[in-house]
């Protein structure tokens, strides 16, 4: 028995969400008194691979071949499932990222495993009873789901488990897995990644704008504040529906659910659908000129005022704070 963690990389580098998932998987390995095996697929340098040991991986399987350089959902699922079988891993952990959400269900079927997507806490294990807390109703609730199958797949929500560093190192082994030709029917034509920006699902701080900003031409101050804080930018549904911002920035029940440490809502009234998408944020700041806006019911801190006056002051204050830090 062991626990297998798939360590997703972006252009050869592991992200914080990957280290969170490794730390989480390490804790499950400790809960079940077994070892933690990591599997990395793609073109990842040795120093990156060995850094996984620091987060608790006992062994790192490195799958590196040209055909698997880019993410191919079907093929990656085959590789991970075969590694799980070879290592006798009954529990497979992934990050609940865009790619992770493609892999988890396929791996689940291959291993006849129940899949706990959207996990937000460590499993509770009592004898044969294995339960995981996961998000439900688009952030409006959590469900405790029992996985009744022998094998289990868990996909961990980014920013929901803290990275834990250990004084440890893992060994690296080359691993080659069987894939079928039919695993490669989907062909990647192009990857467009804006590397200068913080990605919204991974962001620790999110600066989000709503209809109160009156138009896309006023997003300059949102972007400036976000840049200063190392934050991702986001928006409410009416904003993306109006085409002011791309759909990929829409936070809410029918957009992205985020769980940053700090969510700053500017000119967002706080419709129930928006609140669903931000309910897992650790700290919420609201800036709105309407003191009755529902956003203040969920906010930890707030300023009642005009965004066009408050945000420039915030920008100045952050600059001053950074200068004195």
């Amino acid at each position: 028995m062991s626990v297998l963690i798939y360590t997703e990389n972006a252009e050869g580098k592991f992200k914080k969400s990957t280290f969170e998932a490794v730390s989480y998987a390490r804790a499950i390995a400790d809960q079940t008194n077994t070892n933690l095996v990591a599997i990395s697929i793609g073109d990842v340098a040795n120093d990156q691979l060995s850094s996984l040991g620091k987060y608790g991986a006992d062994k790192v399987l490195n799958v590196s071949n040209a055909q698997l350089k880019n993410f191919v959902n079907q093929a990656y699922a085959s590789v991970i499932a075969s590694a799980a079988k070879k290592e006798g891993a009954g529990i497979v952990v992934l990050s609940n990222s865009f790619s992770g959400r493609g892999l988890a269900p396929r791996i689940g079927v291959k291993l006849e495993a129940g899949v706990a997507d959207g996990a937000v806490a460590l499993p509770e294990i009592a004898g044969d009873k294995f339960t995981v807390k996961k998000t439900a109703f688009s952030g409006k609730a959590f469900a405790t789901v029992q996985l009744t199958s022998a094998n289990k797949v868990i996909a961990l929500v980014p920013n929901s488990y803290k990275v834990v560093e250990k004084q440890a190192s893992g060994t690296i082994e080359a691993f080659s897995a069987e894939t079928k030709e039919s695993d490669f029917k989907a062909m990647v034509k192009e990857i467009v990644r804006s590397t200068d920006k913080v990605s919204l699902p991974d962001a620790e701080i999110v600066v989000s704008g709503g209809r109160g900003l009156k138009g896309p031409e006023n997003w300059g101050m949102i972007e400036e504040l976000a840049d200063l804080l190392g934050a991702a930018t986001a928006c409410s549904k009416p904003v993306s529906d109006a085409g002011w911002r791309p759909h990929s920035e829409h936070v809410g029940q029918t957009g992205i659910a985020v769980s940053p440490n700090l969510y700053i809502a500017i000119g967002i009234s706080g419709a129930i659908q928006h609140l669903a998408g931000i309910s897992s944020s650790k700290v919420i700041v609201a800036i709105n000129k309407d003191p009755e806006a529902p956003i203040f019911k969920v906010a930890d801190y707030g300023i009642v005022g005009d965004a066009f006056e408050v945000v420039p002051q915030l920008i100045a204050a952050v600059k001053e704070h950074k200068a004195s830090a």
Partner: protein
Amino acid sequence: MKILVCISNVPDTTTKITFTDNNTQFNTNGVQFILNPYDEIALSRAIELTEGGKGSVTVINVGEANTEATIRKALAIGADDAVRVNAKPHDAWFVAYQIAQYAKQNAFDLILTGRESIDYNGSKVAGMLGELLDTPSVSIIKKLDIDGDKGTVEREIEGGKEVLTIPFPFVAGTAEGVAEPKIPNMRGIMSARTKPLNVIEAAEIKNNSEILSYETPAPRGQVKLVAATEAEKLIGLLHTEAKVI
């Protein structure tokens, strides 16, 4: 081109979520159920792609008789026919398995799901279907075009997008951007009443997950207000008190 669109019946987005029976059951009392918004996008794109005699759109739902209003809505939007697998949708695995049984007997070029249902948010049915049917699957796409017997999709990735071409048949989960949701017109609503809705029985399978209980997020404390002229005070609180910057 034959397209199968998988639809689910979910609580309206404005629903306040509560539970009954010691937090073990979702309280459906007074809740309005709707066609899952992401499935509506899938359906709308399927109709666009088959317009003008270029193909057909079948919708499939795993649900009990109470989902028929939602199925009729899908027919009113423009699906040609519908199938209901008569069973409570236990979990994603149950639903995907039932749809796969139907899809194996009725060859489809393209199977679309929403990226996730807004009640359980699993994003699992598309991938499970792909695996069960041994076809490619893309879980979260924001653009879908068809050229002959292959599709070009844009898949969402953190901080960007990936463009893929995939030969038929394949499965994709649609997100915002794929299509504007279509609104049924009067003719659609009238014709939906007479379009075929076939009810089939579910295959038996062993479940591998059970929801034991629910909880709602812990209530947040009172908001701490800072005067509009004291922005620096807010930054100070976020640094020293909340410790998030």
